[in-house]
């Protein structure tokens, strides 16, 4: 049967012969490289890997990965992925979507693939804009975003993808950004999680929403504005001089100063990837007053949808044989004997 020797590949093995057609400087290039670096690290097998995408800039992704790929229709990638995974649970399914594709037109499917817990990796590239349609504000655009459809600034309040995912019942929620050197670490964790793994990746749209995430992705501010969530480690940032602590009066997080590295004395919370309440607080922190929470925010597996479907099916067919003739003649039947048929008319 299957050869169990780990698959050895290199980044090059995951590149296709297709010319990559994103705008020069687009954050998607960095994400593509991060994924192509990740796949050899998790011993992924190209023949068993399927990238499924919807529509939008990010959804061109499958054409550039040397595996199986399906570029589908706007917002529906989770539904295609569900059919693929149920038909063949052995496949490694990666979903590539964007803020428009996954949160707007496909919001419904994002919700259901998460609550069902289909085993797949969902990468939502969030650039807070509609790129492929030339720059309209998106469901994650901040209030006041100027765009061709919001000339004096958008008025809709934005959706928070990670909060949405937790609300939908996701068992794995993580965050990263395009040029982060730690993005493969996040993707490896997503890959190793059995079930739907939701990863929001902030992505710079160089043309329509340039440098939108600079206030936490730029090197000079990164230390002070990023808190990396790692299981069992204190939630520290600013080189360990600040941390996140629980404010028991308001049941919310607060930023505390850490003196001399004594984070315990400062009451800094220790990250626990199985703490759903903490996860909710981390993804909802307003940026500015708080740092941006990155890394694996929540990771608490449950049985996957496809494994439950397989088990249910085994239960339903127990003791049954696939006899088509028997199936067709099920229920009450009667026979017409040849003699009775003699009188057959015209």
């Amino acid at each position: 049967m299957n050869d169990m020797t780990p698959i050895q590949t290199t980044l090059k093995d995951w590149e296709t012969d297709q010319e990559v057609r994103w705008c020069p400087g687009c954050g998607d290039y960095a994400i593509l490289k991060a994924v192509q670096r990740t796949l050899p690290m998790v011993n992924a097998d190209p023949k068993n890997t399927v990238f499924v995408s919807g529509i939008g800039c990010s959804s061109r992704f499958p054409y550039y990965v040397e595996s199986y790929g399906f570029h589908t229709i706007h917002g529906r990638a989770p539904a295609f992925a569900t059919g693929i995974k149920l038909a063949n649970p052995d496949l490694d399914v990666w979903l590539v979507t964007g803020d428009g594709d996954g949160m707007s037109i496909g919001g419904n499917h994002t919700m259901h693939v998460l609550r069902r817990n289909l085993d797949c990796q969902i990468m939502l590239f969030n650039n807070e804009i509609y790129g492929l349609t030339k720059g309209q504000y998106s469901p994650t655009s901040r209030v006041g975003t100027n765009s061709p459809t919001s000339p004096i600034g958008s008025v809709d309040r934005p959706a928070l993808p990670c909060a949405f995912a937790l609300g939908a019942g996701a068992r794995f929620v993580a965050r990263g950004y395009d040029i982060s050197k730690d993005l493969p670490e996040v993707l490896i964790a997503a890959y190793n999680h059995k079930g739907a793994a939701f990863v929001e990746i902030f992505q710079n749209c160089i043309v329509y929403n340039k440098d939108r995430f600079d206030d936490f992705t730029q090197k000079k501010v990164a230390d002070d504005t990023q808190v990396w969530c790692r299981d069992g480690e204190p939630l520290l940032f600013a080189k360990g001089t600040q941390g996140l602590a629980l404010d028991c009066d308001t049941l919310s997080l607060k930023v505390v100063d850490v003196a001399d590295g004594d984070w315990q004395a400062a009451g800094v919370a220790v990250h626990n990837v199985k703490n759903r309440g903490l996860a909710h607080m981390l993804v909802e922190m307003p940026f500015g007053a708080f740092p941006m929470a990155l890394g694996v925010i929540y990771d608490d597996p449950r049985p996957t949808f496809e494994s439950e479907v397989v088990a249910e099916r085994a239960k339903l067919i127990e003791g049954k044989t696939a006899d088509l003739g028997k199936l067709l003649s099920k229920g009450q039947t009667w026979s017409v004997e040849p003699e009775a048929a003699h009188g057959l008319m015209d």
Partner: protein
Amino acid sequence: MLMNSVNRQESQTSPEAVVVRFAGDSGDGMQLTGGQFTLSTALAGNDLATFPDFPAEIRAPQGTLFGVSAFQINFGSSEITTAGDAPDVLVAMNPAALKTNVPALKPGGLVIIDTGEFNKRNLEKAKYEVSPLDDDSLAKWDVLAFDISALTLEAVKPFGLGNKEALRCKNMWTLGLALWMFDRDRQPLIDWLKGKFAKNPILADANIAALNAGHAYGETAELAGPLKKLHVDPVPSEPGLYRTITGAEAVSLGLVAGAQLAHLPMFFGGYPITPASAILHNLVKMKEFGVTTFQAEDEIAAICAAIGASYAGHLGVTSSSGPGIALKGEAMGLAVMTELPLIIVNSQRGGPSTGLPTKTEQSDLYQAVYGRNGDAPIPVIAARSPGDAFDCAIEACRIAVQFMTPVILLTDGYIGNASEPWKVPDPASYTPFPVTFLEESNNGEGHVLPFKRDERGVRPWIKPGTAGLMHRIGGIEKAIDTGNIDYAPQVHQAQTDARKAKIDGVAKAIPAQDVCLGEDTGKLAVVGWGSTFGPIHQAVRRARKKGLSVSHVHVRHIWPLPENLGELLKGFDKVLVPEMNTGQFKTVLRDQFLIDAQPLTKTSGQPFTIAELEAAIEAKLA
């Protein structure tokens, strides 16, 4: 009219066919009564057809006119193809049922009335100022009125049921009476009741007692006149094993058989919608045949998951009704573009929009043939009857896998819910069409060309998981052979042509159109498709008995049309196309063959009657 009237004079002879309608509150179990009567009729060897007619509300307010649920059955000793026109016998369980149904009853027909429900309140709800039992408004018919409610309560008294539960046995009492009237065996129903109420033997016994009491009432009551026992001779039919089947069952079984013949597992993605849900309900119980079912979050997800499964090597199937099919349109285009097999079953209902959820119509033909963006041809097949839906489903599977294309199978609410006796086919009598997946390079250099077409223009089917054949597909226009993104002008021209040519080529792989009744040329061809088969067939048969030059042509393959159809129709002076829409197939025939196809349309949510078709035929030939 001399036909089949079951009045006092004729009742002792064997009538050729009898139409019985059961009508009551939607909560009265009328569909159940009708369904069981169907079964006992089939067991007695009568050919039959049924027409359930129920409101869209699950439990409409009791006693109201819009809450009436009815079930009509036509059975008799000659081949029956329609649920009949006017009923010979009406069983009316309350005033509302009487009011809405008695106008359809044949003059001289028999109406059986439960006086127990003819109280002031129910009469008011049915908008009767005077009880119809007290004036002469029912004079045209034989009336048999007695207190079925009281008789039922009496019959089930020993079982100590509450009043409400006891009254629920009324439908079985009525059924018992009907079985006596038409000389039907009670035993299969007794067996069925024992099975149905296996967990509650008291309810089983009470229902059986009610059934027996109704039967005994017919046998012993000294009723003069109307209540004469009616015997309908069994129809002689082809020898073999028979069962009754509804269209929804036949589609489900046909899909399972089709997937088996293709040697494929089947994936069914569905979302609940009337009247298509029954297919999902059925397939859930057939998982031992490699069936995976998926109840999706919406119609779009249902078809997208099915396409995903087809991509992964299953036979993807989805089903819905008009509004749901509309939602699936974009995904159908993707299946056309990526050239993956897929079956889309549309159990048509009255539209547009929500329209008539529980009534029948054939108004989604344009949607099936033309309803997508871009040039997106899809083969379309229409079933003519419940039993025919089995073969049509197999045919849909065959075309889908042999041509790597989505296929639309049209049925409708009437076919889906109606049942007819069905000669159980031998699975071995169908020729298998096993699928071959591409397993190795098809360009001679170790590369894969996922869109390299064979002589019929069909691309290979390649499953993810196959070593060395990794490739990408999608909805963007693609280069010849490689499938890489390419929307150069000449490429889109060539691929559009190739997709059209492939589907046009399906016409070479389907049977030539036959004439199902009458000569191959003549004065008038009546061309039908789908569930109008029964009434058209009967009407043409009657017209031919009168010596008229008329033939019946019934088309299964709506797209592409059979290659010989144009020439065939040109052999007739006139072409009449009856359909339950505003003339959709007529337009297709005119467009494809430049013939003067004349429409005969009906959109009342009810099937054509034989009489109206007969009149139309006579008018055309006058």
